[in-house]
């Protein structure tokens, strides 16, 4: 299309052509993706935001990583409710006292150890 050396004007033509082809190609692709979405994607039913207040047994925690602990407990609650963390709001975390008698706990530990 051009000779060995090209002038700045010709360079501008190449730039205009190149950028417009690139844009057109990618715009066509993005419209095609919109079409795919309309054809094949169904919006999942939004789960209503539920407020769960659930007592959670909790291990001894250091004061300085409480935030991390809250995040972990939130994630665990969400997982056990089979929903996303976006749908639950943690308001309060209560420590539940362990009511298992000492002998019961010792038996459980022994059971667990024997499996390793």
């Amino acid at each position, binding site marked *: *299309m*051009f*000779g*060995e*050396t*090209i*002038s*700045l004007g*010709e*360079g*501008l033509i*190449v*730039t205009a*052509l*190149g*950028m417009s*082809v*690139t*844009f*057109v*190609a*990618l*715009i*066509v*692709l*993005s*419209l*095609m*993706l*919109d079409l*795919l*979405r309309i054809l*094949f*994607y169904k919006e*999942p039913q939004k789960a209503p935001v539920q407020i769960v207040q659930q007592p959670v047994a909790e291990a001894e925690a250091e004061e300085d990583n409480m935030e991390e602990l809250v995040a972990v407990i939130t994630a665990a609650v969400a997982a056990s409710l089979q929903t996303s963390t*976006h749908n639950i709001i943690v308001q309060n975390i209560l420590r539940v006292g362990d009511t298992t008698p000492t002998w019961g706990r010792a038996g459980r530990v022994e059971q667990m150890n024997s499996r390793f």
Partner: protein
Amino acid sequence: MFLNVIENFLSSTGFVALTWQHLVMLGIACFFLYLAIVKQYEPLLLLPISFGMLLTNIPLGGLMDYPVYEIGTDGLPHLKQLGGVLYYLYQGVKLGIFPPLIFLGVGAMTDFGPLIANPRSLLLGAAAQFGIFTTFIGAVALGFTGQEAASIGIIGGADGPTAIFLTSKLAPHLLGPIAVAAYSYMALVPVIQPPIMKALTTKEERMIKMEQLRPVTKIEKILFPIITTILGALLLPSATGLLGMLMLGNLFRESGVVDRIFKTAQNELINIVTIFLGVTVGATTSADKFLKAQTIMIIALGMLAFAVGTAAGTIFGKIMSKLSGGKINPLIGSAGVSAVPMAARVSQVVGQKENPSNFLLMHAMGPNVAGVIGSAIAAGVLLSIFG
């Protein structure tokens, strides 16, 4: 007699043929080896490239020598002397075989999900290609020919295989400097991009949080590579080689029925081809071709290409941010300059500096993979004009 043997041996060593140009090149090779090993700048490519550079600049090694033919008495050429081993491996670059194979592996490694979930990010991938064409004009102004200028501009695509592919077709004599510039700047993306991104955006814009991407269905992921290949290749037949192989690799991944070849494409195959590509591209940087004023211009223009690409992407991100009413963080625009996944990681890091609870990585992956498609298309345009 004995002295003669020693004298003969000494004159056959490389030391006798060593020139200062060779020494300079060996020094540069060692410097790049240092960057690859100690600084870990793109070591998977920089290490083979710099060692190739070292090998080719050892005089009398003959690794890149052409085979020698002589016309026999029957009038046909007969092989007189075999070429060097790297010469034969280099044919994969010269004939345009290796870059599409690399793209096959890249396709197998790439998840186009974020792009399918947010199709508008394709526009950012297109905007960032502006760097290619600005640099092209800059190179024309500096007196490079059209073919050379196109090859230099493609450095702004921030995509090694694309740059090598286009250069090997248009201006093979510049392959060494262009490949070295492209890969060095890709490694320097975390250094080059953040100042430009910060200069062009306000603090509020950088703090924008984006909505979570929608999940993408399997059928969309399978149809995407097929439709992209058909549309892209029809529009720009010269981009079929790169685009087609990229999408084939991706179809291996998403179809889920060819697990074995999917694994090979994204591991063994791409690794083997990367070794060959790296060493032989490095081996094109012989002293007589590399130590030229042109090389310095190419390195400077490459920097311009990256900077303009980043700026164009960020500015386009700003425009889209305004148009969407502040739903798009302009920082993801800079990821449009391919360099997967480094550029997306830069968007994430810069965004998180303003707002530690902001996670832009997946949003930036959209423009990032769109940039790969964009630079393949830009390369196709340049190839069809100058090829």
